[in-house]
Every structure is written in structure tokens, then in C-alpha cells.
């Protein structure tokens, strides 16, 4: 491997100082020996996972390896780059990081290119044209870099609702035909579409609290003030019977859980009171 790296010429082989294969120290992660890390391959081992995530694929990783050494894509020292690429892949596999198949395909391609370059070239003149096995890869890398740069520039453009904001005014005062009301079907279909999408992102979960509770949460929140406490009992709306009390109670618990209201009692056994959490919350903590 080192001999072929030298034939590349334009890459000062950093492994010159490297001890022989037997003398290399083994990397241990979670007590398990993993692959050797070349001297010039510095990554904090615990950062590998993050590191892998920061690449968008094998092309991105290759570009990184090339750019890191200020090399021209057009003159990839295949042997050296392949060696470094393989080292990353080995470490990732040893760490049992989930490695997308594309990384392995690229590894195979690099190995193939490398072996083809070791073969003596046919001597015919036309061979110069299309036998350099690096060409297809070089083109692919160039194209990928082109779009990678384009993506960065796209992200830098001022974007609506992130960097700039639309200016609008209320149309409340305007007269006109009443807007169409949503039908229940339309609303349900819209919600079903949202839920369908959510079901595709497995980790997401829409809680299925009762609507009566959610609606009561809104009502109670609106009745509360940040400056003034309201008697807990009056919020239970006992006029609605047992059901109403239960719903109100659950709503108050939910609001508490969400950190939207706070409880107070001026002294033990005095009536429990509630208020909306407000900005003046800190100055009023005496009530606790």
C-alpha cells in the first residue's frame, strides 16, 4: 500500500513515521479492539458517530478527504485516498455504526480503481483517452461538489419567515361576502392527512386527550389573569354537574402540567387559588 502511495508522488506519505502493521496500537472502544487509525486520520473516537452524521454520503466523505489535504479533485491520489476512506469505513463498522450501503459500494469502487491503476497500461495511444479509471469518479465528485456549493448558497439567500418577513395588515374592517366555512368533512380530511404523515414518522405521537378537556383548557386559560388569583372552586363549573367538574379538573391539571398556570394559597387551609403564569411571576412568589 505504501509503495503505491509513493508512486502517486504528490502526496507526502504521512504514514512514513508509522510503525509496521504489527506494531500499531489497537484502538479500543467499549473494550473492543477496533481498526487501526492512521496517524493523519484524527477524529476523536467518541465523535465518530457525529462525524458520520455530518457527511451526506460517500461522495461527501471523499470530498472531505480530498479537500482536507488541499488536493485537486482532478489529481486524486487514489491509493492514499482509498486508504483513508477504508480506514473510516473500518472504524465505523467496528463501532457498529449504521453504515448506509452506499459507503460500502464506494469502498468497492475505490478498491477496483486502485487495482486497475496498478495494472500495466495498454500501450496504444488511444488508451490515454478513457482508461484512467479515476475519470468517472472525478466527474461524479465534481458534480456533487457543484451542487453542494449550490445548496450552501441557496441557504444563504434571504428566506421568507427566517430572514425577511411579509408585511400585511388586517382585513377585518373590510366588507364583502362571507368567506366559505369549512365543512366537517374538509376539516377531518385535512387532519387525517396530517395524521397520516405523522404515522410515517414513527417516533411522533399525537396524544389523544379528550377534546372536552382541551376545549376547557382554553376556556379556563382565558378566564385567568396573570395579576389576579381566581378561586379554584369557581373554576370547576359545578353548574355542569359531575361531568363538568371532572372535565374542568382534568383541564386544570393539564394546564398545570404545561406550566401555563400556577397555584397559590395565602395560608394553610385557605381556599386554593389559581392564576395564569405571567411575567410578574417572580415578584409574586410569596403566595407559595
Amino acid at each position, binding site marked *: 500500500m505504501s509503495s503505491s502511495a509513493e508512486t502517486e508522488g504528490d502526496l507526502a506519505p504521512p504514514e512514513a513515521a508509522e510503525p509496521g502493521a504489527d506494531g500499531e496500537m489497537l484502538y479500543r472502544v467499549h473494550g473492543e479492539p477496533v481498526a487501526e487509525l492512521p496517524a493523519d486520520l484524527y477524529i476523536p473516537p467518541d465523535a465518530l458517530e457525529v462525524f458520520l452524521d455530518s457527511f451526506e454520503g460517500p461522495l461527501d466523505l471523499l470530498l472531505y478527504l480530498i479537500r482536507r489535504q488541499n488536493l485537486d479533485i482532478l489529481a486524486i491520489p487514489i491509493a492514499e485516498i482509498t486508504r483513508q476512506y477504508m480506514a473510516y469505513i473500518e472504524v465505523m463498522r467496528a463501532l457498529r455504526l449504521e453504515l448506509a450501503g452506499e459507503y460500502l459500494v464506494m469502498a468497492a469502487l475505490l478498491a477496483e480503481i486502485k487495482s486497475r491503476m496498478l495494472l500495466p497500461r495498454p500501450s496504444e495511444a488511444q488508451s490515454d483517452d478513457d482508461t484512467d479509471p479515476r475519470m468517472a469518479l472525478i466527474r461524479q465528485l465534481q458534480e456533487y461538489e457543484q451542487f453542494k456549493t449550490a445548496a450552501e448558497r441557496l441557504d444563504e439567500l434571504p428566506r421568507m419567515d427566517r430572514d425577511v418577513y411579509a408585511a400585511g395588515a388586517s*382585513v377585518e374592517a373590510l366588507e364583502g361576502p362571507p368567506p366559505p366555512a369549512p365543512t366537517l368533512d374538509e376539516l377531518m380530511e385535512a387532519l387525517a392527512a396530517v395524521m397520516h404523515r405523522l404515522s410515517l414518522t414513527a417516533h411522533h405521537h399525537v396524544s389523544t386527550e379528550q377534546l372536552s378537556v382541551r376545549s376547557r383548557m382554553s376556556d379556563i386559560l382565558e378566564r385567568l389573569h396573570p395579576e389576579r388569583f381566581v378561586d379554584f372552586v369557581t373554576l370547576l363549573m359545578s353548574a355542569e354537574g359531575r361531568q363538568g367538574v371532572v372535565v374542568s379538573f382534568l383541564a386544570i391539571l393539564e394546564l398545570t402540567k404545561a406550566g401555563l398556570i400556577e397555584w397559590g394559597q395565602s395560608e394553610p387551609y385557605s381556599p386554593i387559588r389559581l392564576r395564569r403564569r405571567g411575567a410578574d411571576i417572580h415578584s409574586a412568589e410569596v403566595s407559595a
Partner: protein
Amino acid sequence: MSEGSTADVEAEQLAAIELALEAVLFAAAEPVAARDLKAACADLGEVDQPLLEQALERLEAHYHDRAIELVRSASGYRFRVRARFSASVQAAQPERPARLSRALLETLAIIAYRQPVTRAEIEAVRGVAVSSGIMRNLQEREWVRVVGHKEVPGRPALYATTRLFLDDLGLTRLEELPPLEQIRDLADVASDAGISLAPPEVEEEAPAPGGSTGPDPGGEAEARD
């Protein structure tokens, strides 16, 4: 001389405040409370109530002859289009959309089921941004109202549905909406039957190679509040 320059500095500050308020009021989806207006001027020196009101008066005067006006309501300040331009605005709307937009319906549905809910929470569920225009629209149709503010930085508004929303749907209580489980079933049935509830190109999740770097609507819900 020094008096003159102090006055100049003050006039400059006032002008700067006026413009900052203008920016905030035009960008907002609902009336902006005085305290939030002050927060917007944080970089412009001490802004007390009289100074704020002075700037608001200047702003109001500036739009005196224009098509919009600065109005104050119980919940704060906002710009609105003057009533006498109703005909022009109506004439500009090509053919009144027979149906409400999907983004608006989804937003409305999420508010109905998740209320009281912040805009960031709605966005986390939908996976994409909800425009100020939609929030303004829903409030002006009086289907949605602000019932409070969440006590986190920025004090985002908490949205809930209104009485009129129920009336327009022909319901008397929110509980008459189908339970979520039923809608989930509807979504399942639709996908089993190969019916794509919008968007049309829904496919099943592939093991994303850039997985953890990809946008994560679910994870954001927690992270955002």
C-alpha cells in the same frame, strides 16, 4: 448647541422606534401588545410608555392619508386596511376560492384538537412553517382566538378555537368532533387503500441515510418549547 444636539438625538431615537414598530406591526399575525412593542425596541435605548405612545402617534399620523390605518384594540396595536377599500380588495381576488386552502384547514384542525397551542407547536406537527397570513386569516374569520401567552421567551400566543368555529361547523360542542382515534383509522384506511391524502407523493419512510441530520418534526416539538 448641546441642547440642540440632545434634541437631535432624541428625534433620531423616536424615528428609529417608529420604524421598528412599523416593522413589527406589519410582520405580526395578530395585535401586538405594548410590552412586546417595547421588547422590539430593546436596542434603541430606554423606551418607556410615553415614548412608545409618542412613536405610535407619529406612526399613526404617517398613515393618515393612506389605505391602511393603525388601530388599537383590547389586545394591542395593529395595522388594518381601511373599510373604504373593500371594493378594491374584493376586485383583486380573482375568483373567490371555493375551498379553503389545505394549509389553513390543517392549521385549523390542529388548533381544534391541540388547543391551547402555540404556532411553533402547530409547525412541529405540520412539519412546515405556518404563515402569519394564515394565522391572521383564521383570527379574522373568528374561528381562532388567542387565549393567553406561553411564559417562555417571546411569550408566544396560545391559540384556541371559538364559538363561531363550532357554529359554522354546525356543532354545539367541541366534543362533537370525531375523536382522534377515528381520524387515525381514516388515515390508515386511506393509506391501505392506496389513496393518497394530500400530498400526492406520500411514500413510506425509507431508512434515511442522513437520518439524524434530516428534519425531524417530531423531535422539534419537545425541543422548541
